Every structure is written in structure tokens, then in C-alpha cells.
């Protein structure tokens, strides 16, 4: 099928039919921030940090496919401020103590906080009474830091199709949970994969931590998105 032509922030871009706006932007050197989107997983559109404006309407760029002649606005001040507000909300809805968090420097939420120069959130802290679940052999699950992106829910699936992680409860009580029976059979590789896929420090492998020295961590010298574009 022929390439699709669209513009993103005024730049003419070529894309493949069926491609999401996020992926098309990436291929054209434009960074649209994502948090729940993860390579190899079906887009879920849960975090809304990739919100763009198409024809005057807000859409999640990870779940919206490109269309011929589409005019996409992404880096405008109002959209960027909305994204910043989402980052702030994610911070106040959890309990994030970056100074001692093992994901610090490798954390996508923290990296987005830096990108948007978040100093003090505009929303009040909610200080939720979240729990940790340390009862499985390989994973330390710190619900204080979960942003409910569902990457683990989508990604950590056993060969027979069972989900190791899932969401419990509803509304503002929604919390991530781990299936203890399935988790007890996890290998180190599976645990590492789950940890790597989590954008924040909610899924941690047990017994190891802080192995990558400061200076060598993912975002120490390369701000998030800098490998794609502005």
C-alpha cells in the first residue's frame, strides 16, 4: 500500500497505513512522549501523555492510526502543559521518593518530570495508603509507584496465556496486583523482563539493586526522547 502523508507540527511526514501517530512521528524524528506505550505490546491508551490534537480534537497518539492528509498538533504550549499536568497528577497520585528509589535515573516518569521541568505539582498530594507486596520469590511490587500503565498486565503472560499481573478494584482504589501462584514460578529472566518493562520503580527484581552506577543510567546523560527528536 502507498505511503500516507500527514503533517505533525507543520512538518510533512510519510507514514505507513495502520501505523500509530506515535510511531509515525518517531520515524520522522519527532518525539511524542509515551508512558504506557511499549514496544511489542498492543497500545492501550491508558496514560494519555501522548495526547495530540487532530482536527481540533484531542486523541491518544498511541492508539490513533495515521490518515491521509491528517494535520497533527503535538508540541504546542497548551498540549505540552496538559502533558505536564498529567505527569504532575501521576506524581501526586502515588508516593514517589526518587532520592532512594532504585529506578531513579532509569525511570520514565522521573525523566518526563525533568523534561517538563516539574518543580512543584499544581495538584495537592494525595498520599495514598498503598502497599508493597514482597511475598513472591522474585518480584518486589511497590504499589506506591505504580502509574497503572498496564505494561506488565499486557506483557507478563505465561505460554498458556495467563496474566501474571492484573488490576484490582475500581476508580481511585484501583491497584496493581500480582498472581502469587504464577509469580512463584517466574524465572529470573521473566522477572527481569517485567522489571525492564515497568516504566517506574513499581516492579523490582529481588536481591539486586543500584547495579548500574550513577552516570551510566538510561537518562543520566540522554534526556528522554533525545534519541528520537525534540
Amino acid at each position, binding site marked *: 500500500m502507498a505511503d500516507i502523508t500527514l503533517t505533525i507540527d507543520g512538518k510533512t511526514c510519510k507514514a505507513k497505513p495502520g501505523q500509530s501517530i506515535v510511531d509515525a512521528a518517531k520515524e520522522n524524528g519527532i518525539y511524542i512522549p509515551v508512558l504506557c506505550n511499549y514496544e511489542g505490546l498492543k497500545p492501550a491508551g491508558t496514560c494519555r501523555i501522548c495526547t495530540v490534537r487532530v482536527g481540533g480534537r484531542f486523541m491518544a497518539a498511541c492508539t490513533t492510526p495515521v490518515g491521509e492528509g491528517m494535520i497533527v498538533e503535538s508540541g504546542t504550549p497548551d498540549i505540552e502543559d496538559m502533558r505536564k499536568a498529567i505527569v504532575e497528577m501521576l506524581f501526586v497520585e502515588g508516593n514517589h521518593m526518587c532520592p532512594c528509589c532504585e529506578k531513579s535515573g532509569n525511570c520514565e516518569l522521573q525523566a518526563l518530570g525533568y523534561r517538563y521541568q516539574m518543580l512543584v505539582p499544581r495538584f495537592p498530594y494525595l498520599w495514598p495508603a498503598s502497599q*508493597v507486596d*514482597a511475598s513472591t520469590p522474585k518480584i*518486589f511490587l511497590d504499589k506506591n509507584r505504580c502509574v497503572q500503565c498496564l505494561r506488565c498486565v499486557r506483557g507478563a503472560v505465561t505460554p498458556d496465556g495467563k496474566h501474571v499481573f492484573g488490576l484490582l478494584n475500581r476508580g481511585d482504589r484501583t491497584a496493581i496486583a500480582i498472581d502469587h501462584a504464577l509469580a512463584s514460578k517466574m524465572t529470573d529472566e521473566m522477572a527481569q523482563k517485567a522489571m525492564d518493562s515497568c516504566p517506574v520503580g513499581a516492579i*523490582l527484581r529481588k*536481591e539486586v*539493586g*543500584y547495579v548500574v*552506577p*550513577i552516570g551510566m543510567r538510561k537518562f543520566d546523560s540522554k534526556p528522554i526522547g533525545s534519541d528520537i527528536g525534540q
Partner: protein
Amino acid sequence: MSRKITIEPVTRVEGHGKVTIHMDDAGKVSQTRFHIVEFRGFERFAQGRPYWEMPVLVQRLCGICPVSHHLAAAKAIDVIAGAGTGEGLTPTGEKMRRLMHYGQMFQSHALHFFHLVSPDLLFGADGDPAIRNVIGVALMHKDLAVQGVMMRKFGQEIILATAGKKIHGTGAIPGGINKNLSVAERDSFLKGADPLNIEKMVSWAQGALDFFKDYHSKNKELIDDFAVFPSNHLSLVRKDGALDLYHGVLRAVDTDGKKILNDVDYQDYLTYIGEEVRSWSYMKFPYLKSLGKEKGWYTVGPLARLNTADFIPTPLAQKEFEIYKAYTKGKVNNMSMHMHWARLIELLHSAEVIRDLLNDKDLQGDNLVAKGPKKKEGVGLVEAPRGTLFHHYRVNDNDQVEMANLIVSTTNNNEPMNQAVNYVANWAFNGKKEITEGMMNRVEMAIRAYDPCLSCATHALGQMPLEIELLGAGGIMLDRKRR
């Protein structure tokens, strides 16, 4: 008329504390107390967190010597991770940690001497407080101020290269370290442009010591007679009795030099050491159980270390140690102001250790972490700049910390500091109607000798202007001074 004098906060120490001095009708000192009035409670924060997080989490209780907490916690966690009790690490793991620790010791001792203490020596206890501070030193003794800044910087660069950050790094991990020292990093310390190279640091450390000795020879009364009282002394020593600031066995001597704790394994510290709570301070009072609460208190820090150690395993510092020991004819040294002397000998020793480590090829090794069968409980001790630091953790079956107990250096020195305050108050205030700035400063000088870190002693941080109140019977304020 009885009265109460409050010095709050004590200045040129790390953190916030206050002194109260009660005087009876006859104008005699009836009671003195050094209060630590802040509280933070890190032992509670640690509960429920994974054990491997401790070295990074708990160091946050202080920004003054976080490396000490980082390493004490790491040593305790080594035990839990099955990496042994201080001797099970790989050579690279152990030596990188030592380099980090001696870098910290070097910068902390330099800061304390040049910035906190030298004003008292250069301008005198009665000197104008407007210049009796680091700014005064910078204006009138620029060379000393610059040396202080550069020595601190050198130590901090060592910390950066080993821990990843100058303050609150992550270098020490369960069973070892997360990086080695690159050849480029090593060479920057060995051959850095003047003055930031190790040779200069050794010579400046020697220079600071010579400065002190010269001052001492001209001010014997202040250095030898100020706040002298009998005390027990406790520290780690290497198994062969050498001074070792990173690892060893616990030794304590009494005021006559008799060993009252004979090179014991610190994993069993609870067998030997108890902690008493008193209602007027957030800081606990540790004591040696064998001697009881009354008599079992002890001093830690440079003075104690040079009282417990048999020798110093680097040549320049050993030479100075011999001079220092000869001054008391080998006897236990209880002169509070000699703590500064001892600290400077340790400064020189630290520089020498750093030099030796930099020349050790093990620092470029790749085998960084050791591991073994896990344990439920671990104790980690280091000699922090201010003295022996205890970290103790117990974990549950899920790898979560269920108990944390910390005894920090300044807590160990709680009773000695109270003794020193009492001594100086009796000596300076008895029968005096008016309180002078110099009298107040003398009380502070006694506390300052211990280089207390009140922030970490109560696991808190803060600063306020100094205030002193003179209260008559019934709490009526007679006089009030502020600075």
C-alpha cells in the same frame, strides 16, 4: 537567686542543639544539659522496605557524612546477602569502598578543622564573633581557607568517583560495589593539576598538623587544660591493633588504658552495649553493659581511636602518632582539645591511605560483587569521621526490613559531650553574674571538639540563630542575648 541559662542553638556544629545551665541561689552551677531537640525516625522508615535499598535509603538521614551511613548499611546488608562480615568481599569491592570511606574521612576532617575549628584557634575564644568564623579565616588567613576548600574538594571528587555522586551516591551495593576506578579517574587523582593531586593533599595535611602543633606549643593552657575529664574510649581496630577506619573488631579501654572490651566481633554488639533513654533528649545514651549505665559511657571519634589503636599503619601518620602518644607518656589521652590533634593525624593518615589505594591495581578489577547464602540479620560498623557508627538490620522471609537500629557516632558521644559541657560550665560560669560571649563560646568549643553531627544523631537537620536566656527563679527572664 537560682537561674537557668540556655544556649540555643550551638553554632559551628552540624545540626541543631541547645545547652541549658541551671544555677542555684549561691550562683553555682547545679545542672547542665546538652539537649538534642530534633527527631526524624529513620528506623521506622526502613521497616517494610527491601534490604538492598538500605544503603541508599538510610544515608538520606544526613547530608554531612552520608558515605558513613551508606557504608555501614552496606556492611550490614553484606551479612544478609551472604557476603560475609567485612572480609568476604572481592578485593576490588573492598578497596573501592575503602577509597570512598577515606575520601569521606579526608574531606570531613579538613572541613571541620579549617572551617569550624580554626576560627577559635586563630581569633581566640574571646575573639569578635563577627570575624570568629570561616569568613574571618578567609579574609585574614586566605591560604588556610583555600586549603580547606581544596582538600574538601579533593575528598569529594574521590567520593564522586567511587559512589557516583558527591552526596548520596549509590556505589556500595549488597556484597560489593557497582563500579571500579577507571585508569583516567585514578590518574586524575595521582597526577591532577596543582593543587588537586594526592601528593599536595599529603603535604597540606602534614602542614595542617604542623600548624596545630605550633599553635599548641604556644597555647598549652587552652589545649591541655580545657575540658579534661576521665572517660572510657571505644572504636574499631584492625585485628592486629592497627588504626582502621573501615573495618575491624570492637575495642574499648578505660581511662587507665585497661582493655574493657577486648577486640570482640561487632556482630554481637548487643551483648556488650546497651542504650538508655532519658526524657529530656531525643538522643539515646549508649553504655557498656559490663560497667552499667552510670559508669559505662564512652567516648568515640579521633581521640578515642588514638587511645584504642596500638599503631597507625602508614608511615607519616605513625610518626605523628608517636609524638602524640609521647606527649601523654603513652597514657590514655582525655584532653578534649587534643581531639583536634588526633583528627589531624587521621587527616594525614587518610591522605596516605588514599595514596596507597590509588596505586593499587585491584581498583581496576572487574570482580565487583560477592554473594552467598542469605541471612536474616546483619550488623555493619564503620569508624565515621565522628566515631563508631552502628547499623543493624533484621529482615523477614520476604526480604523486607522488619527491624533497624542505628547508633550514630554523636549518640555514642552523648554522655561525653554532656560531661564536657558540665566541666566547662562549672569552670567558666560558677559565681559569675554576667554572661559574656566568650563564656558562651567556651561551652560551644567543648561541644565542637567532638564535631557532633546533631542532624544525624537525631536523624534530623536544622539551623537557627544562637540565643541565650538568663532565667531567674520562677522563670522570670533576667537577661537575653541573641546573635
